[in-house]
């Protein structure tokens, strides 16, 4: 459904922003590349103007979504307002089909970058970092994280339709990550 032109596949599979920029510069100008560049600039710029470098704003927003999933329903209005803001920032309101095609792959790229951080020694560790998690525990925790920041938060806040593309992209990337993810994702969806 969201098949992408071969020359873009390398761009969307790379997670290092600097290498991505090199690939982006090598792509033919105009059209889709303009949109990809616009998204690139949007994703890797400091929206808080704190003069920071090496920002991945969309990755940050995806962490925020997971935190918002963990919030209770107290002060729900503030949470829902923030979710609406994030939906706008992630361009989920964009209805242009070609744009949505690129956004789908950009979202998968965000998810892939998040998943790349789920293999480190401190990830999913217990007892203040004293007990390291096994590889399987890390994968299961990654599944839970990804589900919470996509399908979980969309369902909890009643944004299933508005976040459909985001949820699909994260789900597909998760299924490609490890064999046990599909089963775990289904379990989380069913609320078991």
């Amino acid at each position, binding site marked *: 459904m969201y098949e992408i032109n071969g020359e873009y596949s390398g761009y969307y599979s790379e997670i290092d922003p600097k290498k991505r920029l090199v690939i982006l510069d090598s792509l033919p100008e105009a059209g889709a590349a303009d949109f990809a560049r616009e998204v690139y600039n949007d994703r890797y710029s*400091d929206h*808080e103007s704190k003069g*920071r470098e*090496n*920002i*991945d*704003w969309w*990755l*940050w927003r995806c*962490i*925020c979504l*997971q*935190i918002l999933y*963990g*919030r*209770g*329903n*107290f*002060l729900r209005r503030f949470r829902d307002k923030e979710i609406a803001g994030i939906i706008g920032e992630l361009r989920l309101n964009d209805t242009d089909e070609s744009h949505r095609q690129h956004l789908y792959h950009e979202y998968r790229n965000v998810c892939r*970058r*998040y998943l790349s*951080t*789920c293999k*480190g020694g*401190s*990830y*999913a*560790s*217990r*007892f*203040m*970092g*004293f007990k390291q998690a096994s590889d399987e*525990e890390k994968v*299961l*925790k990654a599944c*839970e*994280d990804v589900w919470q920041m996509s399908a979980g938060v969309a369902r909890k806040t009643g944004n299933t339709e508005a976040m459909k593309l985001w949820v699909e992209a994260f789900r597909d990337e998760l299924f490609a990550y490890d064999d046990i993810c599909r089963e775990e994702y289904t379990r989380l969806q069913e*609320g078991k």
Partner: protein
Amino acid sequence: MNENRFAAAFKQNAIWLVFIIEIAIFAYFNPKFLSLPNIINISRQVSYYGIASIGMTFVILIAGIDLSIASIVVLVNVVCAYLMMNMGWNMWFAIIVSIVMATLIGVLNGFMVSTIGIPAIIATFASQTIFRGLAYILSGGLPIPDVLRYAPEAGLNGNPTLAFFARWTLNHWSIFPRTGVGLIPVCAIIMVICFAVGSFILNKSYFGRYFYAIGGNEEASELSGIRVSKMKYLIYALSGFFAGLAGIIVLSRTGSAQASSLVGFEFEVITCVVLGGVSVAGGIGHMSGVIAGVLIIGSLKSGMVMMNVSEYTQMVVQGLVLAIAVGFDCFSKKRQAS
């Protein structure tokens, strides 16, 4: 869906149900437990636990730990009393210097954990030993007594503005825990203000968001642009600050500074925080749960005293509560993973 929402809300607030049941049990065995003087007394007792638990909440949220807070509280006690009693410093100036010192100890913890890379439990254990030792050196191993009686003369004499302010709010220093606005002790009001600030930091500020993010996935937080190292400095500094503030409350409550006091205080604070639902794995927890945890421990201590439970048995019970709280957290994580 509604059922799920109800179940989630119940799960999130179950700790308050535990608190109500606890109150009901103690009130059943001793009707005086719910008397106004006892409620006021509990609010005084929990004030310094509550204040110290705010900093500990931040630290545990990033999957860290601060074992040095008891030593910070004791050192602040000794330093503040020493400055007023032995050096004749103004009370307010002594308080400010003591709290700044506590914050700097927190920064030192942050340096050891973040820059050197020492595991938090080892770094803060080292701090605990160092600063407890310093408190012994400064006090010569002896208590600094009569702070309540002496401080007004030492700190406020000759300064009518300060003296007026102190009379109004603190009744010459000692009043922190002994009177208050209406029936509410000032130390309880300070605790409530601190909880409000802590809650604001966690829920409404970007810093709070960073705490959750670092505790959830440190590497992803770094990649997304958070300066994790700096944030760790800030978090340990905040833990030191709140421990320092708790130290001032303790000094005003006891009226004497003693280097050998508050042994095991850090574990009581950890119990409050973990009991309140803050996960020792980091990234999960709410300030409202911590408030419930503090109230549960405060009521438990008070209730046991009223039921004439011996001090040793109280230690056993508190240890069991900590084990159950951490065990429950680990068990629920394990069950989720399986």
